């Protein structure tokens, strides 16, 4: 395995870096927050991302996409971390596309993937029901009816659930919460009768949805994959999502370090730059080292997705653990090393910790994945 970027991936990285530095960043996030933006992201920025072809990156060419690698998409995700750039890209172009590719029928792929590539369709995964994520802890259920199913239940923390055109809903067609069998996936338009969506403003200024399904009629053709067998594609897609979230967390951590080192070189106390103090030098150097390790883990994890590695679950959990731990350290340390000004809303560094903790918790924090890693490793 080559742990360097190829030309195409390097190009994606550089273009994402320059585009997002110019067009996103904490100033845009501040504007979104202070104007009470109803969707929690800049529609203008999203339009530009569509024009750049970003939603089509992971979509194979036969469905109108660019067919780039996960490593390439990971570079984009990392830069969205550096620049705190919110958009429907993650939920639609990473998570949604992955589920359709993992479980969608040929007809479903051909119908929906080109729409995503063109920027005409957004998706959201309605999965978790409890305050700490767990894909097995599903109570929402479907019962069979003539011509399809009736769906009842509630979902929370649905990323983009308030704006997505279609919801991918995981629901029990058999079994009980905690069972690994009996989970099925459905593609349901958000405006279907019986669906009630309410938004929750989160600390990262993004809005997530709570969704209530009351006797929602779902057609047979809306089932994605095999009935009762949804966990396999769901797990595969969550592995992909967690590796891309790791890339975002890596971007957040790198940006925190960069901003902190810059501050250490500017801020004077006792007549000298505070970066001349060994106590701070060693903290910054430790953080730099941890981020270097995280870079390798994330890059190898992205590469393993492109190589269709067999142990994707182990790799994804290892990647999420490392990225969560490093992002946690970086965001905490950057506030401490900024001192009092790091605690002010006026200064930008505080935006990073708010996004990091949510990205950490999304689809399992480092504790969840450490446990999963040990379990998958046979102890």
């Amino acid at each position, binding site marked *: *395995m080559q742990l360097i970027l190829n030309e195409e991936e390097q190009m994606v990285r550089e273009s994402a870096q320059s585009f997002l530095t110019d067009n996103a960043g904490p100033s845009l996030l501040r504007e979104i927050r202070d104007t009470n933006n109803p969707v929690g992201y800049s529609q203008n920025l999203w339009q530009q991302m569509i024009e750049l072809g970003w939603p089509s990156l992971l979509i194979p060419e036969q469905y109108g996409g660019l067919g780039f690698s996960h490593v390439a998409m990971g570079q984009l995700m990392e830069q969205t971390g550096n620049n705190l750039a919110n958009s429907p890209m993650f939920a639609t172009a990473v998570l949604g596309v992955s589920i359709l590719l993992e479980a969608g029928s040929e007809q479903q792929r051909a119908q929906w993937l080109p729409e995503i590539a063109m920027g005409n369709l957004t998706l959201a995964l309605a999965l978790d029901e409890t305050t700490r994520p767990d894909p097995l802890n599903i109570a929402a259920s479907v019962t069979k009816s003539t011509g399809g199913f009736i769906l009842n239940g509630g979902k929370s923390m649905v990323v983009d659930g308030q704006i997505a055109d279609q919801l991918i809903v995981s629901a029990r067609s058999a079994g009980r919460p905690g069972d690994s069998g009996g989970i099925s996936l459905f593609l349901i338009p958000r405006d279907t009768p019986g669906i009630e969506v309410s938004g929750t403003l989160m600390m990262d200024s993004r809005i997530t949805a709570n969704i209530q399904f009351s006797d929602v009629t779902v057609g047979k053709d809306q089932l994605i994959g095999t009935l009762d067998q949804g966990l396999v594609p769901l797990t595969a897609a969550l592995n992909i999502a967690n590796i891309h979230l790791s890339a975002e967390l890596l971007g957040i951590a790198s940006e925190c370090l960069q901003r902190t080192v810059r501050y250490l070189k500017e801020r004077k106390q006792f007549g000298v730059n505070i970066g*001349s103090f060994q106590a701070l030098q060693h903290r910054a150097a430790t953080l730099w080292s941890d981020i270097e390790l995280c870079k390798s883990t994330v890059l190898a994890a992205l590469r393993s997705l492109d190589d269709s590695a067999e142990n994707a679950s182990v790799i994804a959990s290892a990647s999420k653990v490392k990225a969560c731990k490093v992002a946690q350290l970086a965001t905490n340390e950057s506030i401490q090393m900024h001192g009092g000004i790091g605690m002010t809303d006026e200064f930008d560094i505080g935006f990073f910790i708010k996004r990091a903790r949510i990205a950490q918790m999304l689809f399992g924090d480092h504790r969840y994945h450490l446990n999963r890693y040990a379990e998958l490793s046979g102890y």
Partner: protein
Amino acid sequence: MSDLMTFREDTRRWLEENCPASMRTYMPESEKCWGGRDYVFSSDDQKLWLTRMADRGWTAPTFPKKYGGGGLSKDQAKVLKEELAAITARAPLASMGTEMIGPAILEFGTEDLKQQHLPGIIRGEIRWCQGYSEPNAGSDLAGLQANAEDRGDYFVINGQKVWTSYADKSDWMFCLVKTNTTAKHGGISLVLFDMKSPGVTVRPIQLISGRSPFCETFLDNVRVDKDQVVGEINNGWAIAKYLLTHEREMLGRIGNVPAEKTVAQRAVESIGTKDGHLKDSVLRAELAEWEIDFQSHQLTIERVRDETAVASVGNSSAMLKLYGTQLNQRRRELLIASEGFDAMSWSQDSEARLWLRSKGNTIEGGTSEVQLNIIAKRILGLG
């Protein structure tokens, strides 16, 4: 088929035919092959394996062929490494020569020096030790005082070195000495001499582990001809820094020795499981975290090498050293915790000795604090 794929197939076939079966097993520390004039091979296979690999120059795969090296490109060397790992082949030679002084002679030495020393290094015939630290020059290495008095064609050296790894078993020393006492960094030279030279005395140092990998080396009027200076006189610090980079990278790989059982397997055997989980749930979490960090470090060694066009990884070696040694200490702590009192006996092969020895990892080759200084100053530009 690409050249590299052809190389891989040829290499695989050659290894299949030439690596003795007993050299494809996990290697206990005591069976590491150090080579040297007085080396006693632990088996005929060990000797055969070294000879076969040395004949191809694969004990120093990227060294030029004209000195006996393998003449491989960086990519070919990586393939060789992967193919060796694939059959769990033992390293044919553990050597300060191929790892440290060899690359320095190649980079800075005269043609005569290269011809004199490189073939013996590559064949494992001469074992080398490193004369760096002194009683008053530890972290402040450039403060060394071993004095080299200029006598025209040669130097006469007086001083004391300490923490000289395996000085008692080595044939030659590469040694930092002071050739100009009025300058600090600018008064240091790197010289080579035979440990059998008159005036060289070696005394092993017993560590808290009860073992003695290190020595004190006393230099009493030792004569060194000027043609044994590597690079320019008084320019030894630049070479020392180059060598320290190699040493840090090497120490960063400490603990990356294939073992028969993983730490987790040993913990499971010792503690047992309940419902598939290790019975000690706190240790279980520590183990998982260590494994993830260890893999992360291995991947980082690989990535840093992939990113580097030249042989040296530069200042990143400080991070590899810092993290690699901490991980080895964590591994030893986990093994002690897993195996409990069984690991704490004072028998010769006790885990306790390895655990105690590992405490030196974050000190030798530059303390962790020195590594952090290097990262802060040279990489982050703080100062």
